[in-house]
């Protein structure tokens, strides 16, 4: 790889990359005018390459998207030999599942829990990777910095089963902390199974898992800020804090806005396995979120139509949220997650 390429940093979000160089685009347009058969003769290998992935998405993504129609059915999984036969045989009941859903207090509890956790984490989790990235960026020793990064990225790659296991072993009733406190004659606090503090616990788990990983994108943005700005500001007498406020944070602004949009668009998802794993220990009242609600109301009980209705509600609201958040970002003059190209 050339040194030129290595010195670039790409921050890739969930969107197609920027258009290639103009020269290449002009070439592409010229080629586009070739007749269909010539293009097919030229491009068929590309189509063959795309086909397996496209097929897999068709079966395991788009087919289930269509399968959401069971939300409008009194779906009976035992009709016929396959899901398809059951789907064709089950009676259509219009919006009855949604009416039941909105009349179910457990649904509103789950929605409330989900939104509370999202809001809580927006305040107590979201800013932490930014702060850590700024601290990491200020480390002058390359080796120390590399070591800290290696360590703090690691938990991102652990499964939720492992993360919860570590928390149980450290902070649970039979864990290390309780063990040491009991040795010292102190009654250990109930951390892992207390519904009142569950929101703090899940946030702490998320921070432990992802604070390091969250810094990557901010570190990339920090390294792209022109150092001349800092030098000029320092020469003009701006101290460390004013440089942070007037140069660093504005430099991070596009990334912060982008991540906020993604988070808001995903406001109804706070993680699934994390809650499923701890729901029994803490209780439904505090630990039921929309995703676990869907699971327990459908696959665990067999009421598929009702669960699909809850899932469809969540997907529809999520779509509206992400579109609205993106629109809002454009109004603010930011690039947002995607734009019409």
């Amino acid at each position, binding site marked *: 790889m050339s040194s030129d390429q290595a010195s670039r940093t790409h921050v890739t979000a969930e969107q197609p990359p920027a258009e290639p160089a103009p020269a290449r685009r002009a070439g592409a347009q010229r080629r586009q005018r070739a007749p269909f058969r010539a293009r097919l003769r030229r491009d068929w290998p590309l189509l063959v390459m795309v086909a397996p992935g496209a097929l897999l998405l068709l079966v395991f993504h788009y087919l289930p998207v269509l399968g959401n129609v069971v939300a409008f059915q009194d779906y009976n999984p035992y009709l016929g030999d396959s899901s398809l036969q059951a789907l064709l045989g089950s009676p259509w009941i219009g919006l009855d599942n949604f009416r039941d859903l909105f009349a179910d207090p457990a649904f509103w509890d789950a929605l409330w829990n989900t939104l509370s956790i999202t809001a809580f984490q927006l305040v107590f989790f979201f800013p932490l990777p930014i702060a850590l990235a700024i601290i990491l960026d200020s480390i002058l020793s390359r080796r120390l910095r590399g070591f800290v990064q290696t360590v703090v990225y690691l938990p991102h790659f652990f499964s939720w089963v492992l993360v919860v296991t570590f928390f149980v072993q450290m902070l649970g009733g039979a864990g290390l902390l309780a063990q040491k406190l*009991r040795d010292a004659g102190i009654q250990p606090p109930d951390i892992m199974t207390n519904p009142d503090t569950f929101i703090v616990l899940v946030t702490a788990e998320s921070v432990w898992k992802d604070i390091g990983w969250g810094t990557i994108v901010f570190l990339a943005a920090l390294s792209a800020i*022109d150092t001349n700005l800092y030098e000029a500001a320092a020469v003009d007498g701006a101290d460390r804090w004013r440089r942070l406020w007037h140069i660093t944070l504005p430099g991070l602004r596009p990334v912060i806005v982008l991540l906020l949009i993604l988070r808001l668009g995903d406001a109804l998802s706070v993680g699934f396995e994390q809650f499923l794993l701890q729901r029994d220990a803490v209780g439904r009242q505090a630990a039921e979120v929309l995703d676990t609600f869907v699971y327990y109301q459908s696959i665990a009980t067999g009421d598929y139509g009702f669960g699909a209705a809850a899932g469809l509600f969540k997907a529809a609201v999520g779509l509206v949220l992400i579109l609205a958040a993106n629109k809002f970002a454009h109004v603010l003059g930011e690039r947002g997650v995607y734009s019409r190209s």
Partner: protein
Amino acid sequence: MTLTVRSGGSRRRPGSGRPAWEEEPGPVAQAGKGVVLTAVVLAVLVPLWVVLVTSLSSRQTINAAGGLVIVPRDIDLSAYRIIFSGGQVSQALLVSTMVTVGGTAFSLVLTVLAAYGLSRPGSLGHRGLLFYFLLTFLVYPGLVPSYLVVTGVGLKNSLWALVLPSAISVFNLVVVRAFFQNIPAELLDSARIDGAGEFRILARIVLPLSKAVIAVVGLFYAVGYWNAWFNALLYIDDNEKFPIQRVLQSFILAGQTPQTSGTTVGALPPTLAIKMAVVVVTVAPIALVYPFVQRHFTRGVIVGAIKG
């Protein structure tokens, strides 16, 4: 959105020392930074250390400590001997290894092919196909229809249920595609003039230039397969086919006793050491492989971390 940042010569590199215009940090700031960094590093390392040491401790040491062990007194490998002696844990490790290795290879092939096929704007059907892939970010199926499809195509209780539904990640595809598009077009054009077909260009020119991105995306896939827990809960009923995460969850979080072949657990060594040994073997592959790939996160061109 892709933010392509070109950092010129003015970029500060770590290790190049403090620039002349920057003031020395005060003692309070310096100490505060030290405390924060030490805290985040210890928060990760202490649990790992305690679990590792406990898994290697004998019954006496564990009893003397009253549970988890911080300071190692002796090294006792019997916990590992038991879980590797052909019981449920060995079986689960085998299943997870198969799914991870096979699944990662399968996913990488699909992703690289699709990414290359989608990397040329102006090719036949390019816009439509790209839209088809990217739309998956906005429109996604819920749990219930996915479950109905996977069981409907006959994957219930099959290890394919752990691979096929998650085999292609469009996020990874976008990352690889962005990388491919940054390879100079002249290179590909010259190969084309020399008569190479697309498959040959991909294999001989593009792939050798893309080791960094393949390593990173391969790690993402491998970690995903190794960590698969919920799909196993949904689709796998047969104990013989449980992956390691499913076994770990039932041992530690649901409080069941590990079934080991023949030997009755409880005689020796204590189950705590066995449980911790299961945690260690679940962490080990990740902790051993990831540092080798990590340098590519920073040096290797892509930072596709948002969805992670």
